[in-house]
């Protein structure tokens, strides 16, 4: 119980810190943010109007309190470009990003599990070398390279999937594959390492000695214990997945939050940039905290061990 409370408290501190950092992002704009947003040729009256609309004419302390107050009411301000409430725009884009991230997670698990298990069970076999090759490739080929290559092969040459956009389940395949491969590479390597470690344990020898079939030994005895570190890794890698989603969405014109960030940057719509970064980061913090807490509930050693 103490562990869960401490974990929750630290998450609250981190969330507050993230909010502060995102708030100060707009003050990093070199020179006058209003001038950067409107361009040098804007009329002084327009500049003043925007400055007041953004509250940039107020003392910075008041600006910060207004910003926090807005967040509490899920009021993220108005987009400079479309003049619509930012929270509406985010809600429109969120489902596409969630869909892509979950599909990529699924792809990663579907590739990593068979590959990781096969390469650990048949160490130094063809499977092992194949898994090594996949994981090296997954690390060395970034998603902005893999994406175009997949488009070339499966959309342009074979014509199996659409080149870009989000229409029907077919359009999800290539983006999910692009985003999930890097995670699959890391995951399969991790699974192989932990599984090899577990396979040397005494209880595995016992299980084999009492005549259980190799299948039961691996799937029921070894894999279960090898899974815990893998699940932790999955939680940690979710951040890389959400970050990578930005680039993948741009490659495939996938209408999610990532593409929104880039569009907002190109249009110098800084309040929208802030809101996107905030939403993606907060999602990550919340999911990570929940993973940690679920993990603590599942594994008593963490609750008791506390500080480890």
């Amino acid at each position, binding site marked *: 119980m103490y562990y869960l409370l401490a974990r929750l408290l630290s998450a609250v*501190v981190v969330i507050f810190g993230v909010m502060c950092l995102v708030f100060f992002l707009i003050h990093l704009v070199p020179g006058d943010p209003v001038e950067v947003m409107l361009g040098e040729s804007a009329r002084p009256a327009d500049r003043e109007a925007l400055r007041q609309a953004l509250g940039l004419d107020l003392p910075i302390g008041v600006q910060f309190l207004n910003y926090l107050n807005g967040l509490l009411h899920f009021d993220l301000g108005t987009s400079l470009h479309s003049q619509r409430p930012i929270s509406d725009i985010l809600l429109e884009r969120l489902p596409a990003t969630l869909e892509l991230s979950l599909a990529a997670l699924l792809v990663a698990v579907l590739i990593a599990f068979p590959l990781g298990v096969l390469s650990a069970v048949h160490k130094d076999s063809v499977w092992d070398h194949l898994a090594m090759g996949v994981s090296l490739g997954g690390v060395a080929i*970034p998603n*902005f390279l893999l994406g175009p290559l997949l488009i070339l092969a499966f959309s342009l040459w074979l014509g199996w999937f659409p080149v870009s956009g989000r229409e029907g389940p077919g359009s999800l395949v290539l983006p999910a594959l692009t985003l999930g491969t890097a995670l699959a590479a890391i995951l399969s390597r991790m699974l192989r390492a932990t599984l090899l470690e577990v396979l040397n344990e005494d209880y595995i020898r016992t299980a084999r000695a009492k005549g259980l079939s190799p299948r039961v030994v691996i799937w029921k005895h070894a894999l279960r214990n090898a899974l815990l570190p893998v699940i932790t890794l999955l939680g940690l890698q979710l951040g890389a997945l959400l970050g990578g989603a930005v*680039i993948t969405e741009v490659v495939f014109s996938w209408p999610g939050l990532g593409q929104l960030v880039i569009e907002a940057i190109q249009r110098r719509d800084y309040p929208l940039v802030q809101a996107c970064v905030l939403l993606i*980061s907060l999602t*990550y913090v919340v999911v990570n905290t929940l993973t940690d807490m679920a993990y603590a509930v599942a594994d008593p050693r963490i609750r008791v061990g506390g500080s480890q």
Partner: protein
Amino acid sequence: MARLLGLWLPLAVVVLWALAAVLGPFLPLSPDVIHLPQILAPPGVDALLGHDDLGRSLAARVVSGAQTSFLVAVWVVTISALLGTVIGAASAYLGGVWDLVTVRIIDIFLAFPGILLAIALAGILGPGIDNVVLALSAVGWVGYARLARAQVLSLKHREHVQAALVLGAGPVRILRCHLLPLILAPLIVEASFGVAGVVIAEAGLSFLGLGVQPPAASWGAMIRDGARYLLVAPHMVLVPGVALALVVLAVNLLGDRLRDRLDVRRER
């Protein structure tokens, strides 16, 4: 065979990358010169790696892109390793409130997923190679700080540190002479993997149009430009793509080698 694949070949790739970056400006290459008749020309006899959509030589642009990625990688890894090590080591050694605040700040930076904070920073600071370095360093120092902090925490109660303390050594001297040499190995390994990460991140930012600006070449920007001509000129993506993948793979393999050699168990 394993030695060739795991050591000499990657080493050759990295040396070639560094040479291209350092000697590139002095070679008789013209990455910005436009040859109109050669637009989208595939690799062939007169152009080793073909030409791009403006008729510029891809071979020359790959060398020029090597310069960008090498420069950014060296600067970012140097800045973030130095900054992170000093912050992490000092925080662990001083302890108390300092450490508490540092750990919180590290946690906050880690709460931003992957490259997202760098994208936001680069986007807001504006394009340009110096802002890329700034954005990636602002994100990169955290890993080194965490590592240095953990190492110093586990070492600061050792006898030789206590002995130095009793002999009247100040915190700076203890950190520099008695702790830093011991934590150097894992930091070097982290930095070598960091080079690969920065190369990918720089290319990623350039791919999004947030890195170096045209006509300067970057592998990421070349891949983005080539993606529009995938069907007619796949070499525009493949040439910078292979260069990028080879460098990243080589750096990672050398990092593995270095880790085994220095006997560092990488956490995570």
